[in-house]
């Protein structure tokens, strides 16, 4: 049954309001990043920059440590992503295709890792990394970030493995291929969208994380983007133009990646929280 015209107008009105609530803070940050200081601080704010400038972006990219933060974030994110993929492909394949003792216990472990709050780890991890000599070394953050995306990675890839017909695997095995070869050469291409989804999710989670770099890294030259930008707010007078420009630069890759595989994120999160 199609809704009547009045009902449809109401639906669009509600949608418009929702979109406004979610878009306007982002829009406000975007225009702030182009405003000159007097316009930014004016008592009557402008809703479109009257005299747009790229000064804040230039300051962020050439006069601040932003590019250093960004390099660190990329290194940490890529390393954590590669490790997360290696771990979750193996674990997801085992859960989907193999029978082994302790399978339920392993599934329970993954669920507990998913639920487990990071704040309880900050005190012991600080000490562990200090004892290992990894304090203020980005390796420590990589090691922790792997755990953050691991449950999502295993659950998502498991459902992709479940979708591969058993006949394909059997055919390859009759031809004499070993199981590890079947996993590497038959499965991996078939679940490529799943691998891309997990890779991007893992990178974004690492890129966004504030807590662990904040406690495990101390020198500014080792810092990642979120902690680096947050540090700018402790200055005596906060430069909102620069912070807005840096914020925009930081969310651009997130938006780009989300455009690529966002619909799989939605499915994966729903699978983690709804079914199974």
């Amino acid at each position, binding site marked *: 049954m199609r809704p009547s015209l009045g009902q449809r107008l109401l639906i669009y009105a509600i949608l418009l309001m929702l979109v406004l609530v979610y878009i306007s803070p982002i829009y406000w940050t975007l225009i702030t990043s182009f405003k000159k200081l007097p316009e930014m601080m004016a008592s009557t704010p402008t809703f479109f920059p009257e005299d747009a400038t790229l000064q804040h972006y230039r300051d962020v990219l050439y006069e601040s440590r932003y590019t250093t933060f960004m390099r660190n974030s990329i290194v940490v994110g890529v390393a954590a992503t590669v490790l997360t993929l290696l771990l979750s492909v193996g674990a997801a394949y085992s859960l989907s295709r193999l029978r082994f003792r302790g399978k339920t216990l392993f599934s329970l472990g993954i669920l507990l890792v998913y639920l487990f709050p990071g704040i*309880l780890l*900050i005190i012991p991890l600080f000490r562990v990394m*200090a004892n290992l000599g990894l304090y203020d070394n980005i390796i420590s953050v990589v090691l922790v970030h792997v755990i953050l995306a691991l449950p999502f990675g295993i659950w998502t890839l498991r459902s992709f493995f479940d979708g591969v017909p058993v006949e394909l695997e059997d055919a390859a095995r009759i031809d004499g291929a070993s199981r590890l070869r079947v996993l590497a050469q038959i499965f991996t291409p078939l679940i490529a969208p799943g691998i891309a989804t997990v890779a991007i999710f893992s990178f974004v989670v690492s890129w966004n994380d504030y807590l662990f770099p904040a406690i495990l890294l101390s020198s500014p030259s080792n810092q990642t983007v979120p902690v680096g930008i947050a540090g700018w707010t402790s200055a005596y007078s906060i430069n909102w133009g620069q912070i807005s420009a840096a914020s925009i630069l930081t969310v651009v890759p997130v938006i780009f990646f989300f455009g690529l595989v966002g619909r799989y994120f939605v499915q994966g999160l729903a699978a983690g929280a*709804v079914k199974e």
Partner: protein
Amino acid sequence: MATLECSSQKKSSDLKALASRLLSWLERDGPLSFLLTLPSVVWMLGIIGYPVGLVFWLSLHNQRSIEKNVPFVGLDNYAKILHKSEFWESARLTVIWSLGNLLLIVPIGIAIAVVLNLQFYGQRTVRTWSLLPWMFPIVVNVLMWRWILDPVAGVLNYLMRQIGLVDQPVSFFASRETAMLAVILVNAWRWTPFMAVVTLAAMQTISGTLYEAARVDGASSWAIFWRITFPLIRPAVANTAFILVIWLFNMFPPIWLMTQGGPGDGTATLPVLIYKQGLHLFRMSNAATISVLLLVMFIVPFTTIYLVTFGRRKLS
């Protein structure tokens, strides 16, 4: 020479035999799954299992920063912390923070899901992109809002004065109540899309024929929601709400980045207290003790209820 060659040949054939035995061993489910799950298990034990054990150990010792030879003090830390009004005030704030968030996120999330479940132009795109605010770095979300809420040049204060809601600019972070309210609202803004997206996924598993049958019988949209949709999405909503409660109890970055627990500890929930005691004041054992109390008082009960209620379906 001859013997040497012979032995090296033997060695390489031994190696080959060993490798092929290893490979055939890996053809069996047990060994292969052991090899493939071992790294994940090691990671879980190393990054979560061992540190959790260490938190308990630290709470029974008197550690200040990272010095060696720390004295065992038994339950002294617990006695000390449980006698502090600071701890109980912080626990109270943790409950207010979690409850406030939950009461906003769950109903609004469901309402948004209902709207997104209707037929409209651009539905698929809106459904996917509605998750985006949740994918933004917390730091960016918080800084965006701090600038909007700024008492001097913030746009929200300007708009509130324009529509005559207030005469004087409001300093949201100057009083305990408005600070807590602001932190809760900003966090709810971030998490409502997550709730909506998950609820929507549950709604889409409901068969359309159910709705049609109800409409043929003349049921109103309101009745359809409460008699058909809600009972069928309730498991998913309850499941997500439980996960959210566990996360909310322990959420640290949004509060810290917005108020640093201020003004005057007015938003210092237990996670903020842990951070301040441990990494600002270097009272590691105090921080560890509060961590254990947070775990025992808030996380263990909710996780247990969660596992008992939803665990069987999740693990099968």
